[in-house]
């Protein structure tokens, strides 16, 4: 039960990151490896602004504004010039940005992990059932993630901008030909995606330690999520994120116990973690083998 909640919380976190990534991917056909460092930056800025203001809420708002600005700046300075290039160029340029930011963060804040204290209001635990406590903050993370998912759904499915985003994901050239300023749409989507990643970074900062490179592992998981979900599809990203979150968390907590049924305890303790960390990649391989464009492809190719 606790593990399912943990998995849900992890899934929601992945969704926050994957949502921005899948939109940028889907609408602009742009591979943004630097999305993970935007998440990291969000966490770091959260810590920095908390140290300045002493209030979590103020830190959250300031850090969100800062990640949004930074995302727009990156788009304006670098990425804008790369949309017409092919994927290899995207990979290399954003890889360069990862190197820069990962090490830049180390220069500014040091290599040691930092932590962000939880807001006091939510720092306690809640009793789920008899003898089962669960930290409130994790529930807050789940709730805020679900709220954002709902908001995104409304935004994408029921507003004019959302309609353009969906249309852009299907056929950007056609949307542009119909007189929409697709560049501006790109900028908006990009900034928004960066902000979502930053938000995820701040929300998770009280649970995980804030350190250089924290974005890299999450980035790859987010890629697994959007590839399974189908690139450009918010719905796919949401379902895949929850699936990955739960599968990964359950795999990690139960693989040893399950394997112990089949083999000796020491062998199980060795093989278990290996299988657990391979599980989601195997899942992805199976999904792609059966459906090479993911579960809910946005483009009707």
């Amino acid at each position, binding site marked *: 039960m606790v593990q399912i909640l943990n998995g849900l919380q992890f899934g929601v976190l992945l969704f926050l990151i994957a949502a921005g990534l899948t939109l940028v991917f889907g609408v602009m056909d742009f591979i943004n490896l630097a999305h993970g460092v935007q998440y990291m930056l969000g966490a770091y800025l959260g810590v920095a602004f908390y140290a300045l203001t002493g209030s979590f809420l103020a830190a959250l708002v300031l850090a969100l504004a800062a990640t949004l600005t930074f995302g727009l700046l990156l788009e304006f300075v670098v990425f804008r010039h790369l949309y017409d290039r092919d994927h290899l160029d995207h990979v290399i340029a954003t*890889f360069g940005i990862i190197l820069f930011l990962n090490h830049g963060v180390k220069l500014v804040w040091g290599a040691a992990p930092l932590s962000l204290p939880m807001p006091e209001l939510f720092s306690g635990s809640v009793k789920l059932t008899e003898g089962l406590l669960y930290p409130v903050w994790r529930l807050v993370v789940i709730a805020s993630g679900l709220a954002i998912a709902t908001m995104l759904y409304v935004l994408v499915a029921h507003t004019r901008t959302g309609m353009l985003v969906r249309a852009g994901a299907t056929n950007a050239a056609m949307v542009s030909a119909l007189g929409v300023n697709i560049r501006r749409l790109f900028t908006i989507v990009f900034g928004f995606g960066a902000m979502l990643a930053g938000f995820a970074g701040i929300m998770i900062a009280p649970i995980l330690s804030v350190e250089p490179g924290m974005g890299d592992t999450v980035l790859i998981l987010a890629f697994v999520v959007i590839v399974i979900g189908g690139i450009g599809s918010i719905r796919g990203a949401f379902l895949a994120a929850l699936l990955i979150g739960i599968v990964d968390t359950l795999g990690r907590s139960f693989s040893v116990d399950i394997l112990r049924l089949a083999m000796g305890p020491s062998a199980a303790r060795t093989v278990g973690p290996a299988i657990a960390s391979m599980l989601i990649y195997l899942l992805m391989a199976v999904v*792609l083998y059966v459906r090479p464009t993911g579960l809910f492809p946005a483009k009707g190719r």
Partner: protein
Amino acid sequence: MPASLAASPVRPRGGLLAATLPAGIFLVLTLLPVVTSVTGSTYLISLGSRVMIFAIAAVALDLLVGYAALISFGHAAFIGLGAYAVGILSAYGFTDALVSLPVALAVSAAYAFLTGLVCLRTKGVYFIMITLAFGQMAFFTASSLAPFGGDDGLTIAARNTLAGFPVLRNERAFYYIVFFCLLSTYLFCRALVASRFGRVVRGAKENPVRVSTLGFDVYRFQLATYVIAGALAGLSGFLLANAAEFVSPAYMSWQRSGELIVMVLLGGLASLDGAVIGTAAYLLTEEWLSAFTENWKVIFGPVLVLIVLFARGGLLGLTSALARRFMRA
């Protein structure tokens, strides 16, 4: 497809000139130990070995990225597999290269075959991501191999022997063995690219539909290329493990895969010379910049972005563009 790095390979210039560049590269590499024997330091020799080891992997990657337009983001996994083959075998007492080299090659080729079966069903972005995912799979598997060091890696007691002789333990002999491996890899890939096989693969890069209409099963050709590239990276891993006398999951990290792509791109895509030059440029820059600051990548990252923005075609493309401008002036 828009014009870009991938679509504008550096054409080998014709005739005699085309042969001078690789001849120059390999001449420099041959002479390096002679030069250093004057100064008497082994530092340059081991640096040279390191460059050549990665150059093998980069040349193999160029086969995929440059000639077949298969952007593999998990190439480091094959290096790691080759390295782990050496590490694990020597932990069990198999310390001869005649055992560990074939095993290293076979393991990485097998992994390339199995993952390639799945990866090559996908196209474009999905291919990049799935190769990345399989790379990560290998990385995490190695990290959780507790009996073989897990995260901390595995120290190898001594370098492999070759048919019982400890030749790999002499820095200079080891250098020339690596040199021989690089030269063979280079010539093999050169021949492969020029062969009928290579023409099918290159044709499939330009237009897969047309090539399959001609009656070629593109999937099988790409799979074969993928397996060859994987096995060559395994060779690089075998040498790397012997050079460092240590293997660790870091060999397979996705950053390493990214760096390999950077090396290939830095020199210039779809020109095997470019892969060698790019590797040397990358590793020497690393060596040079890291003397100033531990966080040299802060400088290197933006440089990379600038290269992508302004210097399409890598170092080779840049020099030939400069040469053209110079000729005109």
